[in-house]
């Protein structure tokens, strides 16, 4: 597929074309010191020259004089909340006067949504969420309705954060697949590539000139440099054996002494899918909503059954999170559950670093 060139001012044309085609647009914006994804109608709403300084336990945005919109890596969330809603009603029970109960579907029709600025790691995480919510024994109709209506404009990463390690997991920094359109940012515009029929239809309306050899080289060089600049990594793409061979490693106790069991890591992780279900009864008692909400394996309630909490301390919970994400995921989804986005490192209040913990546990002497 030929790559086109969109001058910077053309970004608004892309947005308008998507809006005209019936999409609601969502894109990154700088808010309260972080990149967040929200309704986007004007290209000026995008961040400009923003750089994210991320480190264990810290996230800070600096504004540089670059005129580019995508000089940052990521914020606490990207695609996940738009497909797997943080809270939603699965069904409603209505009780009539004769005490019969009626169950009512609450699945609404979903509207087309275009998300601008998804990263390669976000696409890899989306692929895993698709596997979980759509390709198992029971597809989730809520996720499916929104997924069918999703249009993705990815942007290759040229400015990874210090916490990023997508090159090590094989998920970035170039967006390779799973997008409708992919953009490569240059100082004066974007290289545009379509990745689907829907994407091609939108690109066709933009009347792009062809990208030059020099432009292609520039974007390629920046992506390559982005990969090289990453310093963190996981010891291997498959740590399943190594983790389960080290269930008694002293490092689990050490990390548990620092971990607050707050669940921040699971809530920012783009692949975590755990949720809880509960019932919200109306005050008058005439109906009750059955609601699902994001949950975390770090909560007390997650493993509670018949008066017993299976994972009754932080040690067991941290070990659960890591052995599932980097271990059992291989059995369940054919790959690790980590796409190297680094969010869990930056948003952990005490700065626990998944790459350091995995490294310490999987390297060296076995403790099984």
């Amino acid at each position, binding site marked *: 597929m030929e790559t086109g060139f969109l001058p910077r001012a053309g970004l608004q044309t892309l947005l308008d074309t998507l809006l005209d085609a019936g999409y609601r647009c969502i894109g990154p914006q700088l808010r309260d010191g972080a990149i967040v994804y929200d309704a986007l109608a004007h290209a000026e709403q995008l961040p400009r020259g923003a750089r994210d300084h991320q480190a264990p336990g810290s996230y800070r945005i600096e504004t540089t004089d670059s005129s580019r919109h995508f000089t940052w890596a990521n914020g606490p969330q990207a695609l996940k909340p738009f497909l797997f809603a943080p809270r939603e009603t*699965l*069904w409603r*029970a209505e*009780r009539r006067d004769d*005490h*019969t*109960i*009626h*169950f009512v*579907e609450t*699945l609404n029709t979903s509207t087309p949504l275009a998300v601008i600025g998804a990263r390669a790691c976000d696409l890899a995480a989306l692929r895993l969420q698709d596997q*979980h*919510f759509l390709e*198992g*024994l*029971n*597809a*989730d*109709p*809520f996720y499916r309705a929104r997924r069918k209506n999703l249009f993705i404009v990815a942007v290759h990463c040229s400015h990874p954060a210090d916490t990023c390690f997508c090159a090590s997991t094989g998920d970035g920094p170039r967006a390779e697949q799973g997008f409708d359109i992919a953009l490569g940012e240059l100082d004066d515009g974007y290289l545009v590539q379509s990745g689907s029929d829907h994407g091609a239809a939108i690109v066709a309306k933009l009347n792009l000139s062809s990208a030059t050899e020099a432009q292609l080289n520039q974007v390629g060089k920046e992506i390559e440099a982005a990969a090289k600049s990453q310093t963190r990594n996981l010891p291997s793409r498959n740590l399943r054996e190594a983790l*389960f061979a080290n*269930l008694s490693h002293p490092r689990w106790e050490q990390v548990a002494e620092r971990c607050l069991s707050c669940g921040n890591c699971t809530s920012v992780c783009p692949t975590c*899918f*755990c*949720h*809880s*279900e*509960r*019932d919200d*009864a109306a005050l008058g*008692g005439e109906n*009750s909503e*059955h609601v*699902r909400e994001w*949950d975390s*394996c770090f909560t007390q*309630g*997650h*493993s*509670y*059954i*018949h*008066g017993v909490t*299976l*994972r009754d301390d932080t*040690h*067991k*919970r941290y*070990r*659960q999170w890591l052995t*599932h994400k980097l271990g*059992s995921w291989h*059995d*369940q989804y054919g790959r690790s559950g980590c796409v190297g986005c680094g969010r869990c490192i930056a948003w952990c209040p005490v700065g626990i670093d998944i790459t350091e913990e995995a490294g310490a546990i999987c390297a060296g002497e076995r403790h099984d």
Partner: protein
Amino acid sequence: MTSPQLPWEAEVVEHVQESPTIFTLRLRFTDPEQHAAYRFAPGQFNMLYLYGVGEVPISIVSDPEDVQLFDHTIRAVGRVTQGLAKLEAGDRLGIRGPYGKGWPLELAEDRDIMIVTGGLGCAPVVSVINYIMRRRDRFRRLVIMQGVKHTDDLIWHSQYEHWSEQPETQVLVAADQGTALWPWHVGHVTDLFDQVKIDFGTALAMMCGPEGLMKAAADQLLPRGMKEEHLFLSMERSMKCAVGLCGHCQRGSHFVCKDGPVFSFADLKPLFGVRGF
């Protein structure tokens, strides 16, 4: 499309009190078409919904061929089950299911069978014992072994006595603490394995109850020649969705709700007995 998690309304036809805290709800779907279409296998479970309070996974104890009603034996321990305990004939609740994989009853045919259970009257294996009793000629010897803490914990006392009188059937019960008139063993259930008369090499075992007890039983059965692929355990984990989505029941490479709740020992072995999984 219909949500796979939308319950059906069901009606309590009868509430049977089995012990002060254990009760059986005999149920029927209020929609006759749903009731007629409903099929399950022993060892599978339903999600029971108490109006306005929530859902709990409970295994089905009745026989799959008893099409009039289906039964759930429940222990009142949490908010939902304590509420379910108050339901009487005519009351309504929600049911969705059946979920999961049940007992390997085809594999069990023409073999000696060992049933091991512990704790408070374990409903999943009672369904299988009744299933075998009603189709006795398809199976060989049957050994029923149950361990309880206190003699009071054994519900369905008379049923155990009845079973012990059946041909080719051995009933072995142990209570950690005995009382006067207790007809069975006082001590640990593991004391009883020497009395078991089955062909261990070909026999099939089905167990449920506390994992400690199942582990102790496996440690007795495997050295006697039972195959790991013939040893089946019904596992319990926290469950919210029952359809493999919520993650609560994840254990190693499985989701207990859809890959289980019945697993072979061979499948469970890697993490069996490791606390926290």
